């Protein structure tokens, strides 16, 4: 309906589309990722111990945490820093830990795991500065449940009882807090702990953590922050839900604004074509990177943050729309393509184009050297390799100036490139115009230095087109006029001839019969003239049908002379022939050629001096056949050779001789229509008409034409 939609409406329609696409992408992607995360979650269990289980409070409650400071053991349950314990309290606490562990955590069949943390603390500080943590390792499976005996801890003193098959030899005495034995081979942590001697600057705490693997959720919700996997799983679920809602809403809106969307896409395409393809590819790479590569802070996940799914989807939609609307034009708008174009113009362009591009290359080198030099000077200066205040200062200024010069050169280079591009376009337009090809009007961008010239060229093209059109129209009109006039002339002429014929057949008295025969004679001449005018008009307006074929010009001349033999014999003239006996092959219309030579011979018969000689020669020169008809004129030839071929111009100004005065004009028109050329040469009373045609070589004649 209304093709002109409001700009804001179009923009809104486009945004709806984009959001729909983005939401769709987000839904699909988060569903896939969510499923993956769920699988992970199920496999690992909520109590997965890959990460920061230490921070889970409820786990901490059930972990026997053993602190050791130096060789004196601390033990107890603790917060992040643990609490330092001494003597009996340590024992009590450790017993409590064991009891708790016994009571709530480890059931028969549970798998126990351990980890050792080594943390260093500055004295009198609670902040952990550095840490070294071993991976969780299996300790063994709890053999009994609800009983007095636990396989790993002694019932009385909280000794860590190790399964026989492990090499772990960590024995912790619950009473005095000493670690009985520890294998340095397995416990790098311990050896690290040993390095930190008590009473030295850095106190060290070594912590032994025990946990039950795959145990789910031991305590109340509020105390239980989720694991990273669970957290990211929940986030994915949120994103999925939000995307679904957005998808529904945006789809409805974009359905409503369907009509504007088409226009929106074309408008967008017009803008989106502008950035280089390389930039788009970089954007695509960034999107993919953000989707599939997780940020380092995330403990889990193969995938990027779920909050990026929607913007990534939107951007992908933009890229897709651009590709769909602009298709291969996208390829043309790239640095690579421009580079290829540059090379192509350089290689196959005109010499002047190459020279112009040389200037471009020179400026490019200038840019590289000044920018590179400036950066290098600044870098060297910054590294502190330059000593001395003034020297350093000078270097700074020098570097800055070089960089400024480089930037200016870049600007100059861009302007130069634009100017050259416009020059190339302009010259191409000129070439097109000159060759008469289809000329596409030039449209230079605003502010182009050559826009004035482009306007002039466009106007020139319009002028030429109009002139050609005008000429065609006047030609058409002329042909119509000729046809109509010739019909209007011929009809009464028929009656005149018929009446004259009838009149002559009557037995009229003496003067009347003479008048009648004069009338008859003139009527017949008029008939010839009308036909000549008609043919000539057709020839000069380019409406002559020419049927070219390969023929022997020498034979044609002999045939023509034989055809006109009677008229030649009746005249007082002698015809001297110099025509080769071997064939002279040309390509032309035989009928037209016959008319050409007939006219020339008739011309010679009419205007030659009585009893003189007419020479007809056929000569070959440099691939051209020259036919010359030479005669001596009866009258003085006091006219211009170019003038005589003009229509109705005749050698005798009194126009008493026969003929329409169109003979030579017809000769010229027909010769040109057949692809030859006609010239007249006058030397005193010698009149020479020369018809010239290119000779066709033997090999160029098709076989079936030879016979």
């Amino acid at each position, binding site marked *: 309906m209304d093709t002109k939609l409001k700009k804001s409406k179009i923009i809104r329609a486009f945004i709806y589309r984009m959001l729909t696409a983005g939401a769709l992408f987000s839904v699909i992607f988060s569903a896939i990722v969510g499923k993956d995360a769920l699988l992970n979650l199920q496999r690992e269990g909520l109590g997965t111990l890959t990460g920061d289980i230490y921070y889970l409070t409820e786990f901490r409650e059930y972990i026997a945490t053993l602190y050791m400071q130096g060789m004196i053991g601390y033990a107890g349950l603790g917060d992040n820093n643990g609490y330092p314990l001494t003597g009996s309290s340590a024992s009590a606490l450790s017993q409590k830990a064991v009891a708790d562990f016994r009571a709530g955590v480890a059931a028969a069949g549970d798998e126990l795991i351990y980890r050792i943390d080594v943390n260093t603390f500055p004295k009198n500080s609670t902040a952990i500065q550095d840490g070294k943590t071993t991976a969780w390792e299996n300790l063994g499976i709890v053999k009994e449940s609800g009983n007095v005996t636990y396989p790993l801890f002694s019932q009385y003193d909280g000794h860590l009882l190790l399964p026989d098959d492990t090499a772990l030899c960590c024995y912790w005495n619950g009473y005095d807090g000493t670690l009985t034995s520890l294998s340095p081979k397995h416990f790098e942590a311990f050896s690290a702990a040993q390095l930190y001697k008590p009473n030295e600057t850095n106190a060290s705490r070594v912590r032994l953590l025990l946990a039950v693997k795959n145990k789910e959720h031991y305590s109340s919700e509020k105390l239980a922050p989720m694991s990273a996997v669970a957290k990211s799983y929940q986030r994915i679920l949120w994103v999925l839900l939000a995307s679904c809602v957005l998808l529904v809403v945006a789809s409805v809106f974009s359905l409503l604004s369907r009509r504007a969307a088409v226009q929106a896409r074309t408008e967008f395409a017009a803008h989106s074509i502008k950035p280089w393809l390389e930039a788009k590819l970089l954007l695509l790479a960034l999107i993919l990177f953000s989707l599939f590569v997780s940020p380092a802070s995330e403990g889990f996940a193969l995938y990027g943050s779920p909050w990026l799914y929607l913007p990534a989807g939107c951007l992908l939609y933009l890229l897709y729309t651009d590709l769909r609307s602009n298709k291969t034009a996208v390829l043309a708008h790239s640095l690579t393509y421009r580079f290829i174009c540059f090379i192509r113009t350089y290689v196959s362009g005109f010499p002047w184009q190459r020279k112009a591009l040389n200037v471009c290359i020179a400026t490019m080198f200038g840019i590289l050297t000044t920018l590179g030099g400036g950066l290098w000077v600044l870098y060297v200066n910054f590294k502190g390799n330059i000593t001395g205040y003034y020297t350093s200062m000078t270097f700074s200024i020098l570097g800055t100036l070089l960089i400024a010069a480089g930037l200016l050169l870049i600007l100059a280079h861009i302007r130069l490139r634009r100017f050259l591009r416009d020059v190339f376009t302009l010259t191409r337009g000129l070439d097109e115009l000159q060759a008469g090809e289809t000329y596409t009007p030039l449209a230079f961008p605003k502010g182009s230095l050559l826009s004035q010239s482009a306007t002039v060229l466009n106007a020139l093209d319009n002028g030429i087109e109009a002139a050609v059109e005008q000429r065609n129209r006047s030609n058409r009109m002329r042909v119509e006029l000729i046809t109509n006039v*010739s*019909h209007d002339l*011929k*009809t*009464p*002429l*028929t*009656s005149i*001839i*018929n*009446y004259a*014929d*009838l009149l002559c057949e009557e037995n009229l008295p003496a003067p009347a019969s003479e008048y009648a025969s004069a009338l008859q004679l003139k009527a017949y001449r008029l*008939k010839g003239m*009308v*036909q000549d005018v*008609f043919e000539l008009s057709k020839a000069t307006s380019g409406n002559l*049908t020419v049927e070219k*074929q390969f*023929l*022997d*010009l020498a*034979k*044609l001349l*002999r*045939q*023509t*002379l*034989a*055809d006109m*033999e009677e008229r030649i014999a009746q005249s007082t003239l002698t015809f001297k022939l110099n025509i080769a006996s071997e064939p002279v092959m040309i390509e*032309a219309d*035989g*009928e037209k*050629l*016959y008319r050409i030579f007939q006219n020339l011979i008739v011309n010679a018969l009419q205007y030659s001096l009585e009893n003189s000689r007419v020479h007809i020669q056929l000569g070959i020169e440099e691939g051209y056949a020259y036919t010359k008809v030479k005669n001596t004129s009866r009258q003085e030839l006091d006219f211009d050779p170019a003038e005589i071929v003009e229509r109705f111009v005749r050698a005798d100004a009194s126009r008493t001789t026969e003929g329409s005065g169109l003979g030579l004009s017809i000769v010229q028109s027909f010769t040109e229509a057949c692809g030859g050329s006609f010239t007249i040469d006058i030397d005193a009373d010698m009149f020479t008409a020369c018809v010239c045609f290119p000779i066709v070589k033997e090999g160029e004649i098709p076989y079936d034409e030879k*016979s």
Partner: protein
Amino acid sequence: MEKECILVVDDDKDIVTTLKIQLEKEGFQVLCAYNGMEALTLLEQTEVHLILLDIMMPRMDGFSAIMKIRERQNIPILVMSAKSEESDKILGLSIGADDYITKPFHYKEVVARIRSQLRRYMKLGGIHSSSDEIRIGRLCFNFIAHTLTADGEPVKLTSIETKILELLMRHPGRIFSTEEIYANVWDEPIAYNGENTVMVHIRRIREKIEINPGEPEYLKVVWGIGYKIEKK
């Protein structure tokens, strides 16, 4: 013998009048019409043997008239027109005209063409072709008797002329070079000025068999190549 009736149709009254006088002098009965409609009305009322028809006429032009006439009658139709284009001639002949004369014409040519058409229409009913003779338009050459008839009338030819014509008539449409004709007719390689000799003979034959030798219909010169009998 009863006079043949000719219908002359042209919107130019003078042309009709002069033609009427001239044709009546030649012994024809002449009916006049000034447009296609009148011609058709007259044709229904009277028996006509031949129609002489202009193309550009008011009310009904010549082409439409020809098509109307051809729906019912088979009489010869001669078109006379100021349009001298080859394409006009072809159009006229293809929709049923038997001959095409361009204006301005000489009445003697018109009479000759009328006679030719009438002879063929009246006397030579069907075409009884045999292998002994070849018929091309109004010409018929008998290869056994070595005689030529034009519109059924015998044409007197010399022996050289008969030989040339026989050679050309055996292969209508084929172009014979002067050398070939010379070698076949005179039975010797072409002599000096042979071209001229052949051409002179051709011109004489043309004067005998063509209605208007200036614009030959049958025996044609293919300029720069040779001669041929037009394949009709």
